[in-house]
């Protein structure tokens, strides 16, 4: 592994614990459930694990992407938990609720890494199985898998230094 790639992996690794703790605290406070981390791995591609992705860009001394990846049913469950609204469709309300959750997770994680002086973008939603997400070049994203009362989901992220 070259020193450049090693450096980028270290930066991504620096985000792991903040992402895990932020995910747990956001789910507990907003959804009333405690997710359990079930896996941590390096991804070999840029295709999120599930059909719905809330994507947040991060800039500053660390630049990269954070993705909350989950299924339609989990997204619907999130809307139900947050607002008590039930639906069968992957509609704007579901997407907005998922985006806001991703926003809070990313914001809370970056706050634990103040030295990186990171800024986060407004979240975007991508839907459809097999879609891909852009990461900085030569970055292998991490995939943190969780299980919860609402269902399984992943937080996927990859960063490089500027």
């Amino acid at each position, binding site marked *: 592994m070259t020193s450049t790639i090693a450096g980028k992996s270290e930066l991504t690794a620096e985000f792991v614990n903040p992402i895990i703790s932020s995910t747990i*605290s*956001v789910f507990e*406070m*907003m959804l009333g459930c405690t997710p359990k981390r079930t896996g941590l791995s390096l991804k070999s591609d840029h295709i999120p694990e599930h059909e719905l992705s809330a994507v947040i860009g991060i800039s500053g001394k660390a630049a990269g992407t954070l993705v909350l990846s989950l299924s339609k049913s989990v997204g619907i469950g999130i*809307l139900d938990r*947050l*607002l008590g609204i039930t639906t069968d469709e992957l509609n*704007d*309300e579901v997407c*907005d*609720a998922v*985006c*806001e959750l991703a*926003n*809070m997770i*990313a*914001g*809370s994680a*970056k*706050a634990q890494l*103040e030295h990186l*002086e990171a800024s*986060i*973008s*407004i979240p975007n939603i991508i839907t459809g199985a097999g879609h891909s997400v852009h990461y900085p070049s030569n970055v292998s994203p991490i995939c943190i898998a969780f299980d919860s009362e609402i269902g399984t989901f992943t937080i996927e992220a990859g960063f490089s230094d500027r």
Partner: protein
Amino acid sequence: MKVLLVDDSGTMRTIQKRCLSKLGIEDVTEAEDGVQALEIYNSGTFDIVLSDWNMPNMDGLQLLKEIRLLNKEIPIIMITTEAERARVVTAIQAGVSDYLVKPFTPDSLKSKLERLTCIKKLYQPL
């Protein structure tokens, strides 16, 4: 109390409106970004502004600065995921009245509102 609630997320606006409703505050006007909020602010009368930071078109920090040019006293609470000390300092320097980091509990919003209402009463003429 007349509230101007600014957040690009409909989910967060609903959550905050429900918190406010539980406190007996029903007169809430919503805006999706700073530009819309400023238009609404200039056309109405409000007792307090609750604003997100990261929004399209005009962010909460710019909105804060724009309102402060018009009104140095109206309470403005920034409700945002931006939790770093540098961000908080930036908002304070721009004139924010209080700061609430997402995710937040209804009680914490209630505390902020009560504190600002109490302060406002102290400065009302007898």
